[in-house]
C-alpha cells in the first residue's frame, strides 16, 4: 500500500463527566489508503463514531483528545478549531446517520452546498451554484437544477442522504467519513446509497471510512475492515480474510449472532458492553468471552499480525487451533 491518506496512531478520546472520565476511545490505530473503502464495525458504545467525530474536532470542547491523527502527513491532534477549518470539508468530509436533522431546515439545498464549496474554493456565487447543480447530478438526483432550489423537507430520506454526499464531495476531499449513512434508511434505499458511495470511491478515487454496525453492509462494499469493541480495535484485515478467518472471539461472536440460513439457533454474546467509566482491566471483552483465561485480564492486548490480518487476542494461537479442531 502506498502512503496512507489518513493515519491514526494510539488515538484516544475521553469525556470528563460528573461521575468520572469516560474513556470512549482508548488507543486506536488505523490507516486508510487512497481510493480505499475501510469499514469500521462495532456495536453501540464501541467508540466507532466518537473516534471520527473527535478526529474532526466536532465533539464538545471539554473532550480530551490524545495520540496522533494525520491526514496526508499533517498532524491534526492538538489543532485549534480555527486550524482545523482548512481540513474540515476540504480534506476530510463527513456524512451522518440522520440526513434530515443533519441538513439545516431553513436553507435551500443549493445554498448549503454552495456554502461548502465557497468555504474552501475561491469561486463566484454563480459558478458555485453551477457546481452545486453538477454535484447533485453526480449523486443521482433527477432535475438537479430545480431540486437545488428546494428545502430539505421537500426531499425523501434517500435523496437527503444523496444531498449530504454531494455536499461532502464538493471539494473533492481526500477522505470521506460516512457515519452509519444508511442506518436510518429502508433496505431498498440503502442499496441505492451504497451504490452511490461505491461510485464515488472509484470515480473520484476518494478514501472512504464507512462506520456501521451492519456486517452485511460491510461485506457488500468495503475493502478492509476494522472491528471495534470498548474503544479499541480488536481485529482487522481484508474483508474476505476477516469474514473467513476471524480469530477474535468478539468478531466471531458478532458473526454468529446474525440470523443466517440453516442456523437453527442464534448464538448471542452473553452480558453487555462494559462501563467506559471503569473499563475492565486487560482485554475489555474478557468478561463476556467464553474463551477467557486469567491471562486475558493481565494486560490490554495489542493488535498483532495473525493469518491474513491482525487480531488483539492473547490467545489467538490457541484459539486458531481450537477452531480448526472443532
Amino acid at each position, binding site marked *: 500500500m502506498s502512503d496512507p491518506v489518513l493515519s491514526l496512531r494510539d488515538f484516544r478520546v475521553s469525556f470528563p463527566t460528573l461521575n468520572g472520565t469516560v474513556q470512549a476511545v482508548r488507543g486506536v490505530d488505523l490507516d486508510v489508503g487512497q481510493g480505499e473503502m475501510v469499514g469500521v464495525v462495532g*456495536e*453501540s458504545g464501541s467508540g466507532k463514531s466518537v473516534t471520527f467525530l473527535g478526529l474532526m474536532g466536532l465533539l464538545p470542547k471539554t473532550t480530551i483528545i490524545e495520540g496522533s491523527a494525520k491526514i496526508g502527513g499533517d498532524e491534526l491532534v492538538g489543532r485549534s478549531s480555527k486550524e482545523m477549518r482548512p481540513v474540515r470539508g476540504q480534506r476530510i468530509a463527513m456524512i451522518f446517520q440522520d440526513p434530515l436533522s443533519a441538513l439545516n431546515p431553513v436553507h435551500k439545498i443549493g445554498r448549503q452546498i454552495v456554502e461548502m464549496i465557497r468555504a474552501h474554493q475561491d469561486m463566484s456565487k454563480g459558478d458555485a451554484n453551477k457546481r452545486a447543480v453538477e454535484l447533485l447530478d453526480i449523486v443521482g438526483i433527477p432535475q438537479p437544477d430545480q431540486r437545488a432550489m428546494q428545502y430539505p423537507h421537500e426531499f*425523501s*430520506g*434517500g*435523496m437527503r442522504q444523496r444531498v449530504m454526499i454531494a455536499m461532502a464531495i464538493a471539494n473533492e476531499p481526500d477522505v470521506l467519513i460516512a457515519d452509519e449513512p444508511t442506518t436510518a434508511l*429502508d*433496505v*431498498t*434505499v*440503502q*442499496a*441505492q446509497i*451504497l*451504490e452511490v458511495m461505491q461510485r464515488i470511491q472509484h470515480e473520484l478515487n476518494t478514501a472512504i471510512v464507512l462506520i456501521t*454496525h*451492519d*456486517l*452485511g*453492509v*460491510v*461485506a*457488500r462494499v468495503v475493502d478492509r475492515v476494522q472491528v471495534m469493541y470498548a474503544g479499541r480495535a480488536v481485529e482487522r484485515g481484508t*474483508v*474476505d480474510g476477516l*469474514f473467513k478467518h476471524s480469530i477474535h472471539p468478539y468478531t466471531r*461472536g*458478532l*458473526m*454468529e*449472532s*446474525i*440470523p*443466517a*440460513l440453516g*442456523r437453527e*439457533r*442464534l*448464538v*448471542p*454474546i*452473553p452480558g*453487555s458492553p462494559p462501563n467506559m467509566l471503569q473499563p475492565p482491566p486487560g482485554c475489555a471483552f474478557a468478561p463476556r468471552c467464553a474463551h477467557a483465561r486469567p491471562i486475558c485480564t493481565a494486560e490490554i492486548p495489542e493488535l498483532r499480525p495473525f493469518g491474513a490480518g491482525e487480531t488483539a487476542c492473547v490467545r489467538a494461537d490457541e484459539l486458531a487451533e481450537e477452531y480448526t479442531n472443532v
Partner: protein
Amino acid sequence: MSEPVLEVTDLVKTFQVRRARGVRVEKASVQAVSGVSFKVDAGQTLGLVGESGSGKTTVGRCVLRLLEPSGGSIRFKGQELVGMHRNELRGLRKQMQIVFQDPYASLDPKRTVGAAIAEPFEIQGVAGDHGKMVGDLLELVGLAPDHAGRFPHEFSGGQRQRIGIARALALDPALIVLDEPVSALDVSIQAGVVNLLDDLQNELGVAYVFIAHDLAVVRHISDLVAVMYLGKLVELASAAEIYDRPAHPYTQALLSAVPEPDPEIERQRNRIVLEGEVPSPINPPSGCRFRTRCPKAQAICAEQEPLLVDESPGHAVACHFADATPVTVWQDGTFERPVG
C-alpha cells in the same frame, strides 16, 4: 382442523390526517392499510415485513384494536373483534398482547420493573401472590427475581426488551404482536432476545405476529411471511417459499437489497436496485401500487389492480406478472427468465 388464533379478513384502516402545519390545519385521508387478509394458527409465527410506510405497524395495532379498524374483520379465536364493545374487549385483552420496538419508551420510567410486570395482574384482577408471579416471569425471560425493585433506567436495551416480553406474557396470552422487537438492539443482544422468543413459543404455544423490516430475523423466526407494500399485501407464503422462490417483483427486489454478511456471496450476487422510494400513501399510484418502481411494469399495471391469488398452493401473490421461477438478474437490472 382447529380454528386459527387470528384471522384477519380485508382489514382496512384509514387515517384522517389533521396535520397542524404551523398554523394551518391540513386534512387528508390516508389509507394506511387496504384490504389485508391473513391467518395465524396456534403456536405459529407470521412475519410481517415491509419498508417504512408499508402499514405493517398499523396492522399490528389494529389486530389488538389499539387502533380502531375502518373496515374488514378480525376474528380472534373465532370471536369478531371489530365492533366489539369496550368492556367485552377488556376481558379478551388477557389473551392477546404486544411487545414494542423502543425498549426505552415501552416502560414507564417512574415505576419499578416489578410494578410494570404486575400491572397486567392488577388491571385484569388476577388473584394470587403478585410478587412471586413477577419473580417467576422475570426468571422466565432470563432475569433475576430481585430485579423487580429496580427502575427501567438501570437496565440495558436488551434487558428492557425482556422486561417488555415478561409483561406481555404475564396473562398467558394466546397471541403476541411483536412490533419490531429487536430492531433497536445491537446484533449480539438481538440474538438472545430472538432465542428467548423462540423458546417461549415452543414452551407456551403462543402465536406471534412478528413485525419487522429485517428480513434475516424474520426468516429465522417465522413460519409464514407476509410482505406489505404501501398498505397492501403483495405476497404471502411460508418462510421457505418466500425466501427461495419469491414471486412478486417487490419481494425479489427487497431480498436482493438485503446485504448478506459474506463478501463472497455479495460479489457473486446479482442485484435489483429499485429506482426511487416508496410513494406517499396520501396519493398512492393507480392500479398496482408498486408499478412506479417495478422493473416489470406494463400498461396493465396502471389500469388494473392485481389481486392476491395463489400462484401455487399456499403461495399467494398480487402481481400481473408473478413468477416464482428462478430469475436471472443481470447487473444492469434487467431480467432474464427461462422461457416456457
